[in-house]
């Protein structure tokens, strides 16, 4: 076999492709920081409790070994942060399949959620639950958070974090009830239709700035009075055509009424 025939062999392309992929993968894994992909340490008891909860509440859709099924994605490698976000906001366990998992009452206690998160984290490396110092906003810049928020978040969640529509009945939810941990986890894991903002594309300091801005949105008093839901000109238009014109029409009828 000459070198030319080796180069022209049917399988050569495939073998070269595979070799390339494997070396790239190994190389990437070697140079990538493992900070956000660490497997947290958990007690065997906690893992067992988490496994039990998983089998009862999650395995129907995600599979007995969390390998995924036609009804739900694989959870291997999603990390504790994803579990904590989905379960602590009441999105999981899902009540019924729909365009998107809606927020509802939380089913599990905080202990149960951390056990479940620990179990799923033990299946494969993934982002862990951010610590209190991770979500601390004391050093963050409010105005920088505003710029980052308008660049990365406002196009779906609206300028005031009140949420907005996406295609086909999907939506970006309101952020008014989200906790700093949940905001951080959402950016880290990209739940539902949200893109992932990992620590490479958005360093923790920027995440903290965004969290500071959203917290400000949650707490700020509207300087101009009643905010009409902060949905922009649509609710203003509804207001002028109901309360506004309504009041002036009533006044016109009153002035125009015949006195008898």
């Amino acid at each position, binding site marked *: 076999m000459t070198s030319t025939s080796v180069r022209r062999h049917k399988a050569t392309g495939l073998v070269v492709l595979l070799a390339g992929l494997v070396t790239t993968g190994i190389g990437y894994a070697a140079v990538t920081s493992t900070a956000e992909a660490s497997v947290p340490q958990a007690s065997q008891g906690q893992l067992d409790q988490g496994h039990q909860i998983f089998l009862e509440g999650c395995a129907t859709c995600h599979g007995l070994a969390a390998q995924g099924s036609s009804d739900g994605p694989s959870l291997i490698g999603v990390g504790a942060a994803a579990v904590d976000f989905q379960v602590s906001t009441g999105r999981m366990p899902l009540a019924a399949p729909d365009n998107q998992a809606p927020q509802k009452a939380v089913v599990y206690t905080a202990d149960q959620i951390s056990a479940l998160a620990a179990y799923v984290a033990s299946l494969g490396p993934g982002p862990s639950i951010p610590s209190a110092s991770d979500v601390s906003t004391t050093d963050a810049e409010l105005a920088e958070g505003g710029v980052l928020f308008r660049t990365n978040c406002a196009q779906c969640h609206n300028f005031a974090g009140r949420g907005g529509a996406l295609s086909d009945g999907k939506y970006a939810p309101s952020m008014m009830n989200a906790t700093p941990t949940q905001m951080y986890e959402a950016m880290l894991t990209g739940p539902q239709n949200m893109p992932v903002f990992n620590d490479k594309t958005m360093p923790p300091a920027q995440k903290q700035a965004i969290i500071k801005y959203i917290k400000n949105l949650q707490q700020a008093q*509207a300087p101009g009075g009643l905010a009409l839901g902060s949905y922009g000109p649509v609710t*203003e238009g509804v207001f002028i055509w109901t309360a506004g014109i309504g009041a002036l029409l009533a006044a*016109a009828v009153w002035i125009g009424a015949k006195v008898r």
Partner: protein
Amino acid sequence: MSVIVKEVGRALGRADERLPVASGLKKNLRKVFPDHWSFMLGEIALYSFLILLLTGVYLTIFFKPSMTDVVYHGSYQPLVGVPMTEAYSSALGISFDVRGGLLIRQIHHWAALFFMAAMMVHMFRIFFTGAFRKPREFNWIIGGSMILIGLLEGFAGYSLPDDLLSGVGVRIVAGIVESIPIVGTYLLFFIFGGQYPGTDFIPRLYTFHVLLVPGILLASVGLHLVLVFYHKHTQYPGPGRTNENVVGFPLFPVYTAKAGGFFFVVFGVTVLISALVTINPIWAYGPYVPDQVTAGSQPDWYIGFVDGALRAFPSWESQFWGHTWSWNIFLPCVVLPGLMVTALLAYPFIESWVTGDTGEHHLLDRPRNAATRTSLGAMAIAFYGVLVINGANDIIAAAFNLSINQLTWFTRIGIFIIPPLVFLSTHRFCMGLQRRDRELLLHGRESGQILRLPHGEFIEIHTPISDDQKAVILSKRDIAPLAIPAATDQNGVATPGLAGKKIRAKLSGFFFQDNVARPSAAEIEAAHHHAHEVHDHEITELHEAGKQAPSQLTD
């Protein structure tokens, strides 16, 4: 005291010798205007316009129409240190660092929404009562143009602060300008002084917003009111009111008091709303940066129909002669609004051509009596309404858990189905009301009193309606539709322009279709006579039975 009176009188006397004030006032202050609440709708628009002028002057003192880059160091913390244009920075300054600035800004913006809404409601009144008919067609055109100019003026104001929302709006307008075939790109460069966004646009828009357009609007308002004076005000039908007179009260003191009071009501309501309810929170939108956008980017409601059309229109685009033809923007945002405005302004002439009615009209139509006009108006409002609602489709989808794609399809289909349905149902409503009017004239009002006759029959007693009500109902004018012309005259000569005349006659037939004719005097007489005969007969019957006749039967 008497000295003062004498001195003032002398001073006024001197003024009288030099200025034609007294003679003009004497005549015009006693001018009679008819009374009805719906005649005050235009006043709401007028007073909103005055409020806009007053508050606008205050805002110009502090606003800097400049696109120079500055870094914000005002008192609104979440934006401190953020680079922005001077226009946005000064608008923030008005909101947070100028005494009363936020209130004045909100009054200005709420008054703008009031101005547009009131002009539209006023137009509905004019349309549905037929007040646009001869001799007032020209005033209809002035009014319609003012809505269009007000729309442009409002959009300019919305765009001036250079916040994220207004920047997105200007970006869409830039796209609309670019979509105009052949000249679009040149036009864009002309308007923006180069590529979008450039640094010229806001200073140019400012001149447009505070000088040119308010001047045009002020002149139009003046002309509009002069023509109302000149033509005299229309009146609703009623006892003693004819096409030749005006029944009402003098301008002074009745309407000066009423209108003056109403001005303060409008001003008060506007200030109350502005003090309690946020409008256009520019600080929350942030400065305009071309790579940013917020969910729920909408124009103010009066531009919503253009946005709604744009959102619903299929993505058609073609390329030939070296140009991209963006039908998906040009048709919904330029052609459609153009057609809508043309139809609106031309309507008085179209109707007069179709009906062949060339007479002067000072007595208003009751909307039911011009059923086709009323239905066309309702249809137009429905068409506009569907577009406005689609302009808010993302907000509706988010608020009611609906799919935005399905809402778009609802609009695409509904825009062809809903307006005709509204036309048909409005027409049926009008016919029903016409029949009821005829019934009221002929047989009177159902009294709710049921009488059982000796032979077992039940009858309901009808009471005649008042003379006032009769006069209102009798105001209905029945116009015969134009006859379809014969192909040839009696000498066998072909009728010139036959096809056009036929179309006109068909349209005329459509306009007057299903009209319920007003009963003639003879019919009314006969109906009354009949009622009395029946009643008399029954009374005799009751007498024979030895009973007292109920008093109602004697009328």
